[in-house]
């Protein structure tokens, strides 16, 4: 019995080892493909990007997209997007204070860093990111503002957290920096004050001002925002500044909509997003006229009509992606 059992155990261990080895071999193949982007691939991608950018609209795919990069699993909860002063694209995760830099022209994850507290990544419902005066700000849905400096790849960073106490008025989902008034703009997705129900609401938060007047509110009548569109509202999911005129550009995931308003609150346009977006959570406009939209991996609430023969079950079926369009 002992001899038979020993044989069995040895073979069982052997078979399991082979399975593990297979897994590692497969992973090694994957890693080879995904971890080390070679120069030729990158050059080809840059060339393809320029070619797509130069192509007439009639030849473009996905509603005029210049590029679409599918995010790996660890970036599936990509939420907000922002640009650094030198034009690099930053994004962040939804559940953790995890920030990453994306090369949107070649589709490469350049670096990533994390805010930590007590050695552990900071958890929260992070909904927006922006850069201002050399700092990076992460904003949560309940109005907490995390300020920190940009880190190197893999860095674990310290931060300063400020509670704006605006969470009692709004559920936020987006932040941007208006340098003309040195203020952060907080886009409100869902208002809590009844009197604001018929308005699109934003708050301004003046940096470097400790007085009570640092907070101001901008409201835009919802009927102006909706215009001729058949929306039942406008639930902002991110906000950015139009670098060409200083207007505020907002995206709404639920309505799959795009809105531009002046800093004074006048609607410039409101229209559906170009292409198809399952869950647009981030938006930026670059100085070289590109509109970049980030979509979180769509989960159970994704629209089944996009995939009619199957019921959506998990995010693996609809990965997160970043799409680049021409602007305007």
């Amino acid at each position, binding site marked *: *019995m002992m001899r*038979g*059992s020993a*044989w*069995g155990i040895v*073979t*069982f261990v*052997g*078979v*399991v080892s*082979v*399975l593990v080895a*297979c897994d590692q*071999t*497969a992973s090694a*193949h*994957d*890693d080879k*493909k*995904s*971890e*080390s*982007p070679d120069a030729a*691939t990158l050059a080809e*991608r840059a060339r*393809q990007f320029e070619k*797509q950018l130069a192509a007439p609209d009639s030849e473009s*795919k*996905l509603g005029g*997209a*210049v*590029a*679409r*990069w*599918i*995010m*790996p*699993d*660890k970036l*599936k909860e990509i939420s907000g997007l922002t640009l650094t002063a030198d034009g690099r694209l930053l994004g962040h995760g939804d559940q953790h204070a995890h920030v990453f830099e*994306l090369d949107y022209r070649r*589709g*490469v*994850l350049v670096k990533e860093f994390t805010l930590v507290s007590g050695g552990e990544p900071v958890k929260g419902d992070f909904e927006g990111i922006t850069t201002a005066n050399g700092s990076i700000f992460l904003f949560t849905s309940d109005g907490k503002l995390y300020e920190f400096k940009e880190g190197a790849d893999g860095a674990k960073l310290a931060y300063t957290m400020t509670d704006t106490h605006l969470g009692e008025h709004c559920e936020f989902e987006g932040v941007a920096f208006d340098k003309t008034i040195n203020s952060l703009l907080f886009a409100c997705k869902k208002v809590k004050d009844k009197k604001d129900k018929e308005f699109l609401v934003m708050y301004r938060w003046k940096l470097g001002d400790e007085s009570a007047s640092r907070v101001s509110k901008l409201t835009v009548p919802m009927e102006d925002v909706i215009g001729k569109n058949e929306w039942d509202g406008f639930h902002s999911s991110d906000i950015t500044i139009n670098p060409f005129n200083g207007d505020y550009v907002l995206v709404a995931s639920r309505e799959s909509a795009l809105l531009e308003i002046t800093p004074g609150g006048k609607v410039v346009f409101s229209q559906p997003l170009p292409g*198809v977006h399952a869950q647009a959570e981030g938006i930026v406009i670059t100085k070289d006229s590109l509109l970049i939209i980030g979509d979180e*991996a769509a989960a159970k609430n994704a629209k089944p009509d*996009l*995939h*009619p*023969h*199957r*019921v959506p*079950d998990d995010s*693996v*079926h*609809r*990965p997160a*992606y*970043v*799409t680049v369009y021409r602007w305007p």
Partner: protein
Amino acid sequence: MGIFKRLIDFVTLGSARPMRRLLAYYAVLAIVVYLIYRFIPAADRLMSAEGERGTMAKASQAGAKLFQDGLNTAPTTLFAPGRQNRAEHAMATLLVFFSTLALMLPVSWVYMSARRDRTHNQSVAQTLIVLPMIVAGVILIVRDSLALAFSLAGVVAAVRFRTSLSDARDVVFIFLAIAVGFAAGTQVLSVAAIVSLLFNFVLVLIWQYDFGRNVLEPTAAAQWESPLKELTGKTIEGPNVPDRDLMLALTPKKVDILTARFKRVQALVGRNGAKPRYNAVLSVSTNSISESKGHIESVLDRVAKRWKLDEVVTNTEKASELFYLVRLKKAVAKGDALTAIREHAGTLFEAVDLEVGEAVEQEQLAEKSLRKQREKALIQ
């Protein structure tokens, strides 16, 4: 198949032991799978669920630095439902089927071999090969579609399956076939492999060591162990039942009979201090005595150090019985001997059993324990 059999013969050095042959099969299979994974990286994608879901899932793997191009290369199911790569689909399905076949072959061998009763059910043996393929095919189609799952339930409900299986073990085998089919269909072949391997391993062990035998119906050896011990003495030194009690119980005639009988037994067991001449009884039920004898004896020549036909019980309305006294070779296990006999005779036997006596081993153990107790007492 011939090449594969020769390969297994080579790996097992021609051993007929079922355990070794099984393990050799799995080892060869594991090596083949590893080589496929090593030299055909695409196999990994096809064998996992990714082949069907396009390359999107690949890009979703953690750790990727280079993002997948969703504009120029992705056959995104999001925007082009139904546009899946048919060739990949077909290849993945073929791989799943071949894997199922490879994993179920040893199960069917075990089903056919590792059993005590007369013959196996051939339709079950064939079902074991085909059923998991069908299950895997169905799962591949249904996948994560709730609508298709409901449709399948409806279709299955419309068909009545009323085959009853006589042996509970057959049901277990069918369940295993379904489990392997499910695992293969969901392209989790590692689970299918482990299930198949462990199932066979456990089943062969259970069969080999006759697990589950009714302890209330002891073997012949165990049945006589206690009264004989009473007569000969627990400690070997002296009898527990005094001679005067036997004198009262026996007549001179009975003593003569017993004396003659024990002399015959002594001739079979051998002298004190030597190894027993025979230590096992092989019993075979068969309807063809002469043909069976030929088969049994040619195998016994190989597996036994010595053997002797002890008795032939001829029955008219049921199978006749042959009893052999056997002393197995040291290197031959009970299960191996049984397998060799069954394989040699095919379906000729109704039942075969080999009962191995352990009286000598038990006596040696008892003596050893007694010696230790004495030594301990002397030291104290």
